[in-house]
């Protein structure tokens, strides 16, 4: 049986798309537990939030549900909330749960105030349990906001080690615990240190800006800064509101210079940093050395997306599939034939005219047929020509021999 080409192309496209999908699907964790967490009580912002005096002991509860499709063994631990180098509150890992504060020893974080059971929670899929915890606010704790957190973590990574670079993943769910101790003293204190430039992976420069947020309360400060070159020309500019800072946190704000290269020279930094209407101005000049400028120009930092030919089987198949489908479509288009009357290309069989009488109603086709001794029409034109053919002249009556009279 002859299989029409256009059907073959359609089947090939379906099979190839199926192959693309199947090869592109990542390896999923089968039978993994996933900790779903929510506070056991109501709070204005969802997470645990307490207004408390020094010396207070607070009790709370956390509801943990295994939302995975397998049994889960979850580690429960308390940790500090801290300010990310990119700003915003993030939560310390169990490797080093108490890191907040200028000295990195947790003196301002609330993580150390939180007591949770140290025994891992083991749950079947969809099983739920309530974990009680205590927040003990030290008697000498300072006024202001203190951020801690309770984490539930599945420490077992999904891992598929079948390639040059493989990334497994573990899951953690965190509920912040914020304690507001009344009467904060400093609500605006900030400081900006002298910036410097560093390189990363020999690929790009980073502008590192030491920031101190000295206030006692959580806030989202504003920052505007401009870096000018020796000719006073602005080369880097930023203007925006940062994400939340934890009180008394110091970070080195990292600003990637993805679109500019600062050559070796002396640059000046002018910035305003602080909460709204309390921004403070800071001015520094700093050098960029030759080694700090030893990165390619922005347009020459290599492919951020590997070329298709270097990709693995899934992408090769995907790209190959697209080309194959395009090629088959091209073949289909080539197989179209042109109708000699309407001059349009049509799929399927066209009709070869063998009888000039079929087209005698069309002067153009008749002339072409006489000239080329062949003519090809699409079905619709052929039908039209047949319909328009003038009626055959009535047959000449034949003489009927009269019967011989008897």
């Amino acid at each position, binding site marked *: 049986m002859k299989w029409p080409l256009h059907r073959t192309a359609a089947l090939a496209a379906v099979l190839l798309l199926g192959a693309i999908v199947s090869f592109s699907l990542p390896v999923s964790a089968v039978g993994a537990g996933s900790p779903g967490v929510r506070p056991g009580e109501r709070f204005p912002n969802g997470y645990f939030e307490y*207004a*408390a005096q020094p010396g207070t002991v607070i009790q709370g509860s956390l509801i943990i549900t295994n939302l995975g499709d397998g049994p889960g063994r979850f580690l429960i631990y308390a940790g500090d909330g801290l300010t990310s180098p990119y700003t915003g509150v993030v939560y310390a*890992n169990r490797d080093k749960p108490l890191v907040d504060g200028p000295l990195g020893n947790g003196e301002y974080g609330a993580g150390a105030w939180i007591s949770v059971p140290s025994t891992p929670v083991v749950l079947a899929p969809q099983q739920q349990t309530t974990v009680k915890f205590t927040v003990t606010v030290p008697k000498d704790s300072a006024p202001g906001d203190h951020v801690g957190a309770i984490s539930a973590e599945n420490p077992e990574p999904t891992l598929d080690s079948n390639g*040059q670079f*493989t990334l497994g*993943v*573990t*899951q953690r769910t965190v509920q912040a615990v914020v304690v507001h101790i009344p009467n904060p003293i400093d609500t605006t204190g900030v400081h900006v240190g002298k910036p410097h430039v560093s390189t990363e992976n020999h690929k790009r420069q980073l502008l590192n800006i030491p920031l101190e947020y000295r206030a006692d309360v959580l806030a989202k400060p504003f920052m505007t800064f401009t870096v000018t070159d020796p000719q006073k020309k602005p080369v880097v500019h930023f203007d925006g509101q940062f994400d939340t800072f934890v009180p008394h946190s110091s970070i080195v704000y990292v600003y990637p210079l993805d679109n500019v290269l600062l050559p070796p020279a002396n640059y000046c930094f002018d910035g305003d940093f602080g909460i709204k209407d309390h921004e403070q101005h800071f001015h520094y000049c700093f050098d960029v050395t030759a080694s700090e400028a030893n990165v390619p120009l922005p347009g020459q*930092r290599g492919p951020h997306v590997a070329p298709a030919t270097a990709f693995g089987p899934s992408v090769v198949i995907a790209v190959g599939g697209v080309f194959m489908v395009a090629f088959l479509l091209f073949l289909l288009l080539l197989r179209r034939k042109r109708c000699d009357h309407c001059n349009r290309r049509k799929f399927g069989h066209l009709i070869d005219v063998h009888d000039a009488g079929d087209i005698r109603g069309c002067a153009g086709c008749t002339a072409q047929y006489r000239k080329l001794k062949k003519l090809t029409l699409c079905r619709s034109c052929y039908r039209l020509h047949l319909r328009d053919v003038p009626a055959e002249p009535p047959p000449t009556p034949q003489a009927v021999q009269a019967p011989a009279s008897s």
Partner: protein
Amino acid sequence: MAVMVAIAATGSTAVGVFAGTLSVTVPASTTLPSTAISAGTLTAGVNAANWAETAGTNVGWKGTLAVQQFHIIGTNAWTPGASAVLANNNSGQYIGATQAAFYTVNVTAASAGATTTVAISWSGDEVGSGTATKNTPFVMGVRGMTIDFLSGQAYVVTDVYTARVGNLATSALSVAQATTVITLVSGAGGTNLPTATGGTSTVTSGSPSTYSTTPVKFVTAANTKGVGTFSVTPGVTLTWDPNNTWALPYTASAQYTIASGP
């Protein structure tokens, strides 16, 4: 024992709301697309997972990424070649900073089968010598490497063992916000969808066995958004030194965190 004063927070009373349950489920392991070592960098979506706030109260959430250092695992690190067999070919996990470290261990004195020790020297990423006890992993240097000679096995001075190990730089991974893909699994789409963030922030790794000290935010759902379940595939850029990387599998574990907080 006297019970200490327990004061419920002002926030835990009438004005409060029950928060939704936050979770990250169905995380996938990812082998990054095969790329020539000479390329030195690669951007791809990795480790799709379902991020959810169910039965939510529209208080928002954020998702962060922390990562361990990409490393060649110590399992089967040693290659005996034609030399006498080891108890096993495993090493302790290399914790040095070299992305493509090489070690050579030479037996420096013959050791009969009945002898319980083997005298060795080593060179490459670290240099030293010592006496290993058979069937006990012998620690070479200070970068985690060990070698385990077999009890009852004889060794001669021509026995040589090599290992190729290494760790990518702690700055190897960065967020590629433009490559992050977020799609709706259940709930409402449109403006309810969480949004990708993080720009090209570096996710500074911890050691081969510990996560970043400060996770990096790469997805966020503001107040009134992010209620439902969403498939999030974070975009990342991995960078390595083409002249200092073995063509061997480097692996790492990432940690996804979904958090409710300020």
